């Protein structure tokens, strides 16, 4: 999707600037009323963050009370590359000393 909006990256945006009527893509993260963290719920197109929030409310929360919404321009997200998966994630797998599993977790510590 074409983002950065010109206002945000004035110099580099010339060739990727959105055409009129071209709405950038936003990623939506929702924390439900009893939820502990924001979870990626989906994406949508919107002209700016305010509209993205309002559309996200309609599309992903059905307007339940007490939820929290984050919207992020998709272009602002940097993803890890699937090709580098092994190098990225595997080293820890066979090195149990890297895992903090040898500790007793005290009572009263939640959500660890």
């Amino acid at each position, binding site marked *: 999707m074409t983002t950065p909006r010109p206002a945000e990256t004035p110099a580099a945006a010339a060739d990727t600037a959105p055409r*009129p009527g071209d*709405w950038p893509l936003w990623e939506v993260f929702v924390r439900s009323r009893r939820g502990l963290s924001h979870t990626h719920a989906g994406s*949508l*197109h919107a*002209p700016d963050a*305010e*509209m993205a929030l*309002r*559309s996200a409310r309609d*599309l992903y929360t059905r307007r339940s009370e007490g939820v929290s919404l984050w919207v992020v321009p998709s272009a602002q997200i940097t993803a890890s590359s699937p090709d580098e998966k092994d190098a990225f994630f595997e080293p820890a797998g066979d090195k149990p000393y890297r895992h903090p599993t040898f500790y007793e977790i005290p009572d009263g510590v939640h959500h660890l």
Partner: protein
Amino acid sequence: MNITATPALPLGDDALILSHRLGEWAGHAPVLEEEVALANIALDLLGQARILLSLAGDEDELAYLREERQFRNLQLVEQPNGDFAHTIARQLYFSTYQELLFNHLAATDSELAPLAGKAVKEVAYHRDHAHQWTLRLGDGTDESRTRMQRAVDALWRYTGELFEPVEGLETVPWAALHDSWAARITSTLEQATLTVPEGPRHGAWTAGAGRQGLHTEPFGRMLAEMQHLHRSHPGATW
């Protein structure tokens, strides 16, 4: 048909008719996200209409079997959708009115207080939606600005009727509501770089006429479509 004399009838008619108009946008909105927003607002209004009309009688009979002259809705809400700016101007005028009225009713001991208390949250959202779009269209491109100005001008003459006292709601401070309404609309339009219309708000034939059952020409065609199925199969259940 048994119709109880209650202010729930005109207010229910407002919600029902505007809900139907917004339903006409289904599949035709400028973008998918807006499609969902308009449908959401339409469903909120339909929910309000069902509760209000149930206070006045049988909701289906009231919606589907009344003639044009028996409807008590404002002429504003029966106006055709026009372009998107036209729909947004209608939403801005009406939802600002509805929010002020419901806020007032929610604080009274009228039979409408529980409904108003619930609906006012929905209506605040509707007004915010219309406000946001008015800003974007008014302060958008030359074309969108021209269209938004045309829309607020065209619908202006239907706004005088909003503050005609409704039968059964004589205790509502209509003049004060009007002043708050005018202040909010002025603020939104100025933020949107639009001009507040100066024309008369009571046309020769529009002054408070919707509440008396006198409607504009497009309303009859809208009702024909809305009531067609029910009238073709009277007594059917679905």
